């Protein structure tokens, strides 16, 4: 009997990291921002998560050239293309469908904000960018998108 209990406990403990990992990785995928102007692909790198812009509704500037990160306060980055830009950085899964300690970059203002992401359902993210404390912030709702098979 005790042997069976030990095996059961072992199996449970062995399975826990896998379950936790699955919860953490639930955020991986392609998401559309609340204003529909961009799609962001979130990937996992080690124990952290980050996201890059993979689609822009208006990918080109008024001259027809690919949009650059011209508002970045770091002048050396202003020649970088926005498409492919890593706008989410350093998120850590803390459980309860929440990723914290990350930052989000707003290309329109060139500002980087502290950010927390909460997955409210499997296809919805509450992405809250804030300044210092969460009270001074704004939540954007991102929706998961699926690639259409061609």
């Amino acid at each position, binding site marked *: 009997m005790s042997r069976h209990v030990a095996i059961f406990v072992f199996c449970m403990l062995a399975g826990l990291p896998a379950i936790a990992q699955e919860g953490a990785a639930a955020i991986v995928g*392609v998401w*559309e921002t*609340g*204003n*529909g*102007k961009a*799609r962001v*692909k979130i990937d996992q*790198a080690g124990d952290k998560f980050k996201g890059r812009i*993979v*689609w822009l*509704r*208006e990918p080109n500037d*008024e001259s027809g050239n690919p949009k650059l990160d*011209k*508002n970045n*306060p770091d002048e050396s*980055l202003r020649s*970088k*293309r926005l*498409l*492919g*830009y*890593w706008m989410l*950085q350093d998120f850590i899964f803390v459980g309860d469908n929440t990723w914290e300690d990350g930052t989000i970059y*707003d290309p*329109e*203002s*060139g*500002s980087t*904000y502290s950010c927390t992401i909460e997955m409210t*359902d*499997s*296809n*919805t993210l*509450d992405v*809250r*960018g*804030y*300044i210092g404390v969460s*009270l*001074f*912030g*704004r*939540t*954007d*709702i991102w*929706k*998961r*998108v*699926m*690639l*259409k098979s*061609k």
Partner: protein
Amino acid sequence: MNGHSKFDIKGCVLSILTYLILLTSSISAVAQESDTTFVEEDFSMYDEVELADGGKRFATSKVLGQSPNKLISLGYDFQGRHDMTLDDLGSAPMSTLQVNSVQGIRIVANFPIISKTNVLVNIGANYGESLYQIDNADDHPLSQSLQQRGLRTTGLSATVFKPFNETNFLFTQVTADLNGDYFLPDFQPLSFTRYSLSAIYGWKRHDRLLYGFGFTRSYRVGEPNYLPVFMYNYTFPSRKWGIESVFPARGHVRRTIDARTLAFFGYELEGQTYRMSSLEGVGGVLDPELRRSELRIRLVFERSIKDFIWLSVQAGVRYNWNYNLDDGDFFRGFFGDQLYIMENDLANALYFNFSINLVSP
């Protein structure tokens, strides 16, 4: 055995070399992966997508390039020298006095308490004061009150932006203000709270154009009035110019110098009715209400001085729209024939205002 040993050593060296090559490659890959710069990739696969749960998209409340929302604003307002002509009141005859300055602080706070794609709710609070410095203020009870007590306004507001889809939205705002000649922290009775309401139904045609029509009950002309309103926010394709307006309350042309520097030219109509408790009973007036409204034609310069801290400086002309006194708070409208207790006049004055602001993400 020796041959095996030689083979093993050779194999081991090869393994180590292979491992090092793989390690170096993986480090390189990680370095590239963690790089925040553009990595060549075919992103066209993300052109054709569908929402996973078939969800709706919603219009946002701003257009591209629009000035940032201010979460907290600490400001100072100053009006320069001008003449004030006050009608007779009780035993006091009509008087023309010189106002040397009208100045005071202005504090505004706005907090988004619900910030969702399908609804935005903001709660705000504001405090402002107008402290007068008038020559020979004791010549008239109104100027005496202004000199000794000044005017204060303390208010709360709630704003709701409700998009129904990618195009249509409803914008509503309710404000409650206590305005008068009171001193802090002794507010005047809450029964003198004045309410304003605006509702606008609008369309967001694209990322650079948003407009709407609505109605407002407002004190911007100094006394309660009901007016149609037209919201129009537009950014030109160049992104360097834009218009930010809610007619007739305000209208500005915006020049975007860069993402952190904006300039505006336009106007704002500011107004409130002020309960003048110090004048109660003077000249038989039981419920004195000072109807104050001014048109501010101005240049505004706003710049991010450190991350999310923005400096705003404005300068212009304060044009007097209304400074009359009523007995009681009632609706007159543009066509009412009720007489004012006092019909006063203020000469125009130069003014400036600066504020430090914490702006919203």
